[in-house]
């Protein structure tokens, strides 16, 4: 969006905030494509329409909270990004918690998947070996491979959280993902 368009949108948004309904079509026409474009970048393809719709509703429902001294597009995209992230998190959580709809036809594991899993485990072991014993112990205990350290629940959770952050950082540095 050009600087002039942004200024026009901010002016229209300020009018809408003040209750001027005649600014609604202009705001809607400018805001919808921007919301859709951001939603396409932030959520999976099948959830784009829902995310954009919810973000659009959020933007208009909170139009009275818009601060006219701020850029309207940034404000709109901020709301959209938050909404998209929330939706994407929910979607991922659902994907992990829901059982697969169809059980595999046979119990034999896919050889490619077995090989990939073995590779991942090997890479994880290397990184765990480089971590401090506290961190490695916390992560292994969370996977049920060793006994949980003799510390309080909250302490353990905090220790595991920090260990996972370090693990992800080391993994990212080594494998780039």
């Amino acid at each position, binding site marked *: 969006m050009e600087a002039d368009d942004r200024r026009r949108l901010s002016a229209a948004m300020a009018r809408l905030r003040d*209750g001027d309904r005649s600014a609604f079509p202009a705001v809607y026409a400018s805001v919808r494509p921007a919301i859709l474009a951001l939603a396409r970048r932030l959520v999976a393809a099948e959830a784009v329409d829902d995310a954009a719709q919810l973000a659009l509703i959020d933007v208009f429902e909170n139009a009275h909270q818009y601060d006219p001294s701020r850029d309207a597009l940034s404000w709109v995209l901020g709301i959209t990004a938050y909404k998209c992230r929330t939706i994407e998190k929910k979607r991922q959580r659902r994907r992990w918690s829901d059982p697969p709809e169809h059980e595999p036809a046979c119990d034999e594991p896919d050889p490619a998947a077995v090989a990939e899993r073995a590779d991942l485990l090997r890479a994880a072991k290397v990184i765990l070996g480089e971590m401090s014993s506290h961190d490695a112990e916390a992560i292994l205990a969370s996977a049920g491979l060793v006994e949980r350290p003799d510390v309080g629940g909250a302490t353990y959770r905090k220790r595991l959280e920090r260990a996972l952050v370090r693990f992800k950082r080391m993994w990212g540095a080594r494998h780039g993902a």
Partner: protein
Amino acid sequence: MAPDERRARRAYEWGRLKYAARRMWLPALLVVCAEQACGCTAVSYGVVAALALTTLFLGWRGGWYERAIAPATVGGCIAFLAPLCAAYAGVRDEALVATCGLGGVLAGALLAVWGVRQQVPLKRVFAVAAFHIVLVGALGCAIVGVGAFLGLALGVFVAAAPAWVRAPAAA
């Protein structure tokens, strides 16, 4: 209008309604004050309900309507307090009715001064704001009777009339 646009429009109106509902403390506070000062009748509760709706409408509509809430409420409070103070000072009967009228004139004049200074571009804003003043003031005048209420309404409309005449019918 596309379905998406309709939904967005509905969301906008709903958001404005919620925003306007935040001002509901005002009628609630006034009814408590009226109850403490002179006791509420069924008419008073009806007036408070109308006042709540007017406040909601002004906030929801936004723009000049929303900006009119402050002067209309201050003016209404003057009209509300005038008969109560007069009654407390010992004024009775016709003089009390006249006090209600005087309170209305003061409130209407306040609205007119605000409208002229701010160059309010709508006659309808004056009409709704004057109605709001009458409703707030009526809570105080309820102790006096129907005559006081009419005096108050007349006072408000007479005092606000010059500003109303000056304002254009549409922006």
